[in-house]
């Protein structure tokens, strides 16, 4: 169960490999890893987005992400989980978030990964402000899952 906030750009594939190699202890025990990577778009509602600021609530954000991971571990038989989320200034194509879950069989890893990202998006204290060629604007709500 690892939660990290990053102020600098990161490569989700590298982070996943590092975590799996060094942190997931039960080598040979997991048969499935499911990950989700959220990436910054250069458009929103047909407007060109040039940059984005991600604000968070230091202390509460990390605690809340830990709670989400703990709840996933209660609900599903997972061996480990990982959340890495960017904060600060982002550019289009930057990774915003990496979420991953490890389990013996795929069902638990799929379900836990989906739970982690949906909980994060609806409850974890992060706020996006998008910058356009002229002006900037707070994102009012996340896109619902359809």
């Amino acid at each position: 169960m690892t939660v990290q906030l990053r102020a600098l750009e990161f490569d989700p594939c590298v982070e996943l490999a590092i975590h799996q190699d060094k942190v997931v202890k039960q080598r040979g025990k997991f048969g499935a890893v499911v990950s989700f990577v959220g990436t910054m778009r250069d458009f929103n509602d047909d407007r060109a987005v040039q940059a984005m600021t991600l604000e968070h609530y230091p202390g509460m954000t990390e605690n809340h992400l830990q709670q989400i991971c703990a709840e996933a571990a209660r609900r599903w038989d997972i061996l480990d989980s990982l959340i890495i989320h960017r904060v600060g200034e982002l550019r289009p194509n930057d990774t915003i978030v990496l979420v991953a879950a490890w389990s013996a069989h795929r069902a638990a890893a799929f379900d836990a990964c989906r739970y982690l990202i949906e909980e994060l998006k609806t409850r974890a204290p992060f706020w996006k402000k998008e910058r356009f060629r002229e002006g900037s604007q707070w994102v009012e709500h996340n896109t619902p899952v359809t």
Partner: protein
Amino acid sequence: MPLQVRYFASLRERMGRADESLDGVSAANVAEVWARVSQNKPLPANTLVAVNREYADLDSEVKDGDEVAFFPPVTGG
């Protein structure tokens, strides 16, 4: 010890400050804290509240030394 009040994102900009201290809050709820910091303005729709960095409600009780936060709906991920 004073009660700390914090604001985030659009609400921080709307309030014109990120945080403030309130003295003499021996026992109150979150709604009363909002009334005091906003001079009785209505709380913007969909505002979320936290007490000591855990989600809370407007009727959650607070006391000296607590940290109360007001913020808009979250948009991470």
